[in-house]
């Protein structure tokens, strides 16, 4: 087994162990604080392992390792762990650790399911042979990782604010979208069924919005301490990710003009990145309104997460095409 595979496996297993440790520690919060600390150390070990695996891959490939889906997923999990390292002092570490470890484990599971051909180091196509790749891609992937954390924390915010139905619908919508991306990547179902599943997921998110505005507003949200903490983490996460997304979109425009002679072509992925950017701009505007409640902000962050998933993976695997389908298995 080569060094890169060893580091990746070590990172995958440590994230899985960390998830169980955090889950058990969350169930017995006050009594098992030491267990939570062990989980933190495991996640930091996982972070080091992913960093080393990326380094080994970069040295082996003689280029920055963000050129295909597998590499971008490795980098995405690195971004998730970076988010955990930067945000963990702001929240009950157990919850954030639990969410991060679960997300990283799922990302590793997804990456390990990719065909071996896609996990190998492949030569770059002419359009990707550019210094712009190193400038444009990493900030975007790291921003997606921070947005994922903010979205998950937003669901936690609903739960802690006793908006249980909204939280369950959001979780269902997220699960459906993620499952459809999994199925679409591995081509386990027809393109039509996968599309239907994804759009059904988005419909469930509309149900969550309806519940939020009509049924659950009859009783005012409960402002627990966890609510305030999750809101603060969500804000910090988006505040970090938003400039990264902006930078990624701008450098993408520079690169497109350099390579194709047009900085904006309304390619599906470009359009979706605009929609994602606008949704987080809406979050920031909403935040500027002092009368806005934390649960309204959480709803905005959650919808932003769905758009982020659609931007990052949706377009490649829902068959919507465009110029950015570098990770497509076809």
């Amino acid at each position: 087994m080569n060094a890169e595979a060893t580091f990746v496996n070590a990172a995958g297993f440590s994230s899985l162990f960390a998830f169980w440790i955090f889950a058990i520690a969350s169930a017995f919060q006050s009594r098992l604080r030491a267990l939570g600390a062990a989980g933190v150390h495991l996640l930091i070990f996982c972070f080091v392992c992913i960093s080393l695996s990326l380094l080994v891959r970069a040295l082996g490939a003689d280029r920055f390792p963000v050129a295909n889906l597998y590499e971008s997923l490795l980098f995405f999990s690195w971004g998730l762990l970076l988010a955990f390292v930067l945000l963990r002092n702001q929240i009950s570490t157990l919850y954030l650790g639990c969410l991060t470890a679960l997300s990283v484990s799922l990302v590793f599971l997804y990456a390990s399911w990719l065909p071996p051909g896609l996990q190998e180091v492949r030569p770059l196509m002419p359009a990707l042979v550019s210094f712009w790749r190193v400038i444009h891609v990493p900030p975007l992937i790291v921003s997606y990782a921070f947005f994922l954390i903010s979205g998950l924390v937003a669901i936690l915010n609903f739960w802690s604010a006793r908006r249980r139905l909204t939280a369950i619908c959001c979780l269902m919508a997220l699960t459906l979208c993620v499952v459809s991306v999994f199925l679409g990547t591995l081509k386990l179902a027809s393109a039509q069924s996968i599309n239907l599943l994804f759009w059904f997921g988005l419909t469930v998110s509309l149900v969550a919005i309806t519940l939020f505005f009509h049924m659950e507003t009859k009783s005012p949200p409960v402002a627990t301490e966890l609510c305030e903490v999750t809101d603060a983490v969500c804000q910090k996460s988006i505040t970090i990710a938003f400039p990264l997304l902006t930078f990624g979109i701008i450098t993408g425009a520079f690169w497109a003009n350099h390579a194709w002679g047009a900085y904006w072509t309304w390619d599906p992925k470009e359009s979706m990145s605009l929609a994602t950017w606008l949704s987080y701009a809406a979050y920031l505007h909403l935040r500027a309104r002092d009368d806005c409640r934390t649960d309204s902000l959480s709803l905005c962050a959650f919808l932003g997460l769905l758009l982020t998933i659609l931007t990052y993976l949706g377009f490649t695997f829902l068959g919507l095409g465009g110029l950015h389908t570098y990770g497509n298995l076809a």
Partner: protein
Amino acid sequence: MKLSKSSSVSGYIGSCLSSVRLTLVLIAILVVLSIVGACVPQISQGESRLLSDYSSNQSLSIVQALGFTDVFGSWPFLLCIAGLFVNLIACTIARMPERIRRRLNQDDHLASSQVAKLRQSVSFGLPCRTTGVLEYLHGYMEARGYKVSIRGNSAVFRKGKAGWLAAPLTHLGLVVLLLGVMISMLFSYSGVLYLKEGDIECISGSLEQKGPLAHVPELSVKLLSTKSESYAGGEPKQWFSTLAIANTAKQLFSGSLSVNSPLTFDGIDFCQSDWKIAAIAFSVNSRYVKVPLSDMPHGRMGVLRLSDDLALICAYAGGPHIRVYLKEQGATHPRFLANLAPGQKISNFPISILYEKELPQSGIKFKSDPGLWVTYTALLFFFLGSILVAVPDLKIWAAVDPGEGDASQCWLGFSGVKSARIMRDHLRRIEQAMKSQFYEDKPERGVVMSNER
């Protein structure tokens, strides 16, 4: 009476136009339209994409009738952009003068009655003289990175003052972006040249888009040479072209370009956007013929009719070889003849066929856009603005009024909305710290007031 009614109506319209609520509604509509535009194939992606995505002409015509195939050029999208622009201008007019005035007047000390009227304020009594309270506040706030200014019985504490520029810079970026796009729409032109080696084409004859005020020079482009570089496994690595640019009289310029390395001449950018083997050259019975190739699912294919009942089919899937088949009339499948490299010949056949060479075609995109640097400046503003979103813009006012004996009444407050939650926490912490400092074990006597506007 009439005047007051009309002024109240205009005030209402003004407050609607400059409201954050309108911004949110417009952004929400733009998000929905962008999703539709991203998911439904657009006319800008080419008609072939539209036709391939819709199985029937009927469904395509329904989608077209709904305006879903040109979302980004449709009136709802453009109306939203215009609305956002108006909203932005209205916000700037309504709020910017006040913000600039406050910025210019950094040491705008407020009396306790004015602090009490701020967006959020807190008041509490302390068993200490005003000088002692202000001294403590000075040390406490300075230790937390605040810049302190004390005048008389009032004080101003500031931190992260660059943060206030976040919204103005981002909004300025949007205005400059619209300006840049407008210049591009009026003055830019672009097109694609598909050239084989030795081909000459005029820029003005290959335009895809031209602004109403654009001046297109009479230039011709000649492809001097083109080549493809491949990895060891045969995957394409890079495409190169060498161009000569001339006007009607003489050659003006020549240079090379490749993917991600454009060539610029006289404000016109030439980009290597495409490269493919367009045709195969054969010698059939010593006669030179070109067989154009067409795109197929797994490569490219060309057909050469040799006689009434015989056709030669060549298939190209990258690499140095082509596969040659013979199709006889009446036969269900073509017969595979050979894998040929350039210079190789099929000799066991009545007609002599020599594979001469492949004929590459280079796709060169050209563009002249005087608005590009304005757009880039706008993007820079966006980026700076988005970074400054993370920088809190904190300004706290304090006023201490002398009370009875050694007691005093302290007022703390802030205005602004960007960091309202952070500021509320700060006020709470400052209040707690002061009470624990001055009261020791005495009971607390604080009053919190909120003046939400």
